[in-house]
């Protein structure tokens, strides 16, 4: 494993460099059209639609974002908002037969959507990897944990002997904090506890030192105490490996723990994007307000009532016309009818902060100041 460190170090240097340039180029280049050459991952106008018997499901409908090495992006949204499909699309794991995919995904200067599927497969697990929600179902029940890590390693290191690969697996298990890794390596997934399984899953996804790690609801199936351990682990490993991380979750607390930037998705589209701090202290989209208002918070005085977002998430086949959030939006009337006719564009309101909302900017500010902020 030690020989991979220089790589990590160099990519860290690159990240720092990118950061420095970032400040002046972000405003200009993070536009919808051109991919950002500075970003390690640059997604432009990603659309993933599925043909079903009931109609076209627009799971992801024009999502763009950039992510630099060493940074963490949080993607937040309800079930069906398209957050998981976005990540599967980046890895090329969406079901290809019924899926229609368009847009661009640039990973380290290489475009993936138009690339040969076999090339994308080679990158998968090597340069980009993924952690899933439920580690019990995500690991094969018939193979030992070690065998599954060894497999992940050897598919990208075909010259490595089984013995060497096993050594790597033990080392990885040790690294993610599994006690007695040389013994546990021969255990089956069902012999691990939930937290241990997620650790093993992380070991498996990091075994090839990927530069991009996507974690899809990595702690949803775990207890709070274990969740805290896993979040710490992801944070530490990110520092150590210097990877770019995308964390997908519905839990704003988890996102706040890890992310530098946050992307809020609704109905397959990005409705708000900004730094973590902006999203939590000065959010401008009514849906973001709704998310923040509906969660009971331990760090605040006890609210008498929670403020839920009314209604249910929309059907992706029959998205509401105009702004997809309009039937659930308490301020839809203030847009002068635009919310039911026009799809709002994601507009930059401040450097690095983008919002897709028809409400006039001053109106958004005053509503947030007078109605939302006091309740949060």
């Amino acid at each position, binding site marked *: 494993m030690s020989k991979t460190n220089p790589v990590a170090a160099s990519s860290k240097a690159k990240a720092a460099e990118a950061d420095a340039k970032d400040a002046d180029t972000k405003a200009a280049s993070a536009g919808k059209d051109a991919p950002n050459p500075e970003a390690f991952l640059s997604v432009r106008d990603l659309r993933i639609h599925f043909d079903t018997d009931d109609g076209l499901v627009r799971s992801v409908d024009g999502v763009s974002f950039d992510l630099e090495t060493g940074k963490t992006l949080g993607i937040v949204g309800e079930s069906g908002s398209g957050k998981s499909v976005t990540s599967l699309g980046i890895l090329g794991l969406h079901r290809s037969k019924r899926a229609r995919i368009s847009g661009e995904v640039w990973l380290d200067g290489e475009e993936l959507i138009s690339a040969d599927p076999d090339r994308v497969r080679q990158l998968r697990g090597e340069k980009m990897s993924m952690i899933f929600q439920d580690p019990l179902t995500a690991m094969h029940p*018939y193979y030992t944990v070690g065998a599954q890590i060894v497999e992940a390693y050897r598919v990208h290191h075909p010259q490595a002997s089984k013995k060497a690969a096993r050594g790597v697996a033990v080392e990885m298990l040790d690294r993610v904090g599994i006690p007695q890794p040389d013994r546990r390596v021969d255990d089956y997934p069902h012999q691990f506890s939930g937290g241990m399984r997620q650790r093993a899953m992380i070991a498996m996804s990091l075994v090839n030192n990927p530069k991009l790690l996507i974690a899809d609801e990595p702690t949803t199936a775990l207890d709070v105490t274990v969740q805290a351990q896993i979040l710490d682990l992801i944070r530490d490993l990110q520092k150590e490996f210097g990877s770019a991380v995308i964390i997908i979750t519905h839990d704003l607390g988890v996102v706040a723990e890890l992310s530098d930037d946050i992307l809020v998705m609704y109905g397959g589209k990005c409705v708000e994007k900004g730094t973590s701090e902006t999203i939590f202290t000065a959010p401008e989209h009514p849906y973001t307000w709704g998310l923040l208002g509906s969660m009971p918070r331990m760090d605040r005085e006890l609210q008498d009532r929670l403020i839920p977002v009314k209604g249910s998430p929309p059907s992706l086949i029959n998205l509401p016309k105009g702004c997809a959030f309009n039937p659930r939006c308490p301020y839809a009337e203030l847009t002068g009818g635009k919310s039911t006719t026009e799809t709002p564009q994601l507009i930059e309101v401040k450097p690095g902060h983008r919002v897709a909302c028809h409400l006039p900017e001053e109106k958004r500010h005053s509503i947030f100041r007078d109605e939302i902020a006091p309740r949060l």
Partner: protein
Amino acid sequence: MVAYIIRRAFAAVVLLLIVSAVTFGIFFLVPRLAGETTQQLASQYVGRDPSPQAVQSIIHNLGFDKPVYQQYWEFIHGIVAGRTFNDGPTPTHCAVPCFGYSFKSHLPVWPDLTQRIPVTLSLALGAAVIWLVSGVAIGVLSALKRGSIFDRLSMGVALAGVSLPIFFTGLLSMDLFSFQWPIFSNLHYVNFTDNPLMWAKNLVLPWVTLAFLYSALYARLTRAGMLETMSEDYIRTARAKGLPERKVVTRHGLRSALTPIITIFGMDFGLLLGGAVLTETVFSLPGVGQYAVQAITDNDLPKVMAVTTLAAFFIVVANLLVDLLYAVVDPRVRLS
């Protein structure tokens, strides 16, 4: 694990005892309950219009005058340790396992029956190989190319295979390949040890006919299992690792999809060893199934009992093997 095996084996023995008791009950107790007298029961063992004395001596010799539980005990004892009948001037010994005497031939049942086992075994083995290979292969391909022409065509044929009875497909194949185009003419069973080539040649039609039925069933099962497995989370994980699709299918998909097939295969194979009645009858193969049919038509109770017990034995053993195999394949069973 050892405790598990012993426990399963013990359960198997108990199950066999129950089966033997039920069988015994059906053939010796039920006729009496239905009103048949000891005399009538015994008279089946003697020729036509027997003299009362002959019947009486048969009753005595076969122990019909003893209480039922004692008769059952002697029956079980015969199977486990052999039995001696005083049915003639000199007592006849019936060797282990003794299922008694045939009404018709007055010969011990077992040696006669054992001659039939290789025939049925040959039939079952060959057919099993064909149906496993073809059924699983077609099922997997259908699942991977779901909705394709291949999928629809093979599932259509499979539906026909499941629906068409053996006496139709069997007679049709005989008519086509034995009479119209005499590729496999003059079908008769040849022992493998006598002439392996002729053994195989004469069994091709029965194998294919029998396998067609099962292959169709297995193709459908494999397809369903494969479709389910391929949508599992761990398949997505395997793809996320960057494994080539071929490996995802074989190492991760097939392994899980085939596990339930093992269970069904064990049961089916065990069942077949107890006699492939229709196939054996259609192709005049002197196997266990044909023996059973003959025994039933002749109302030859000891023969019927022997066949029933044998079939039960095969099924119980197959079941036991399946359970053990399952533990080998699935670590969750083994380690729980």
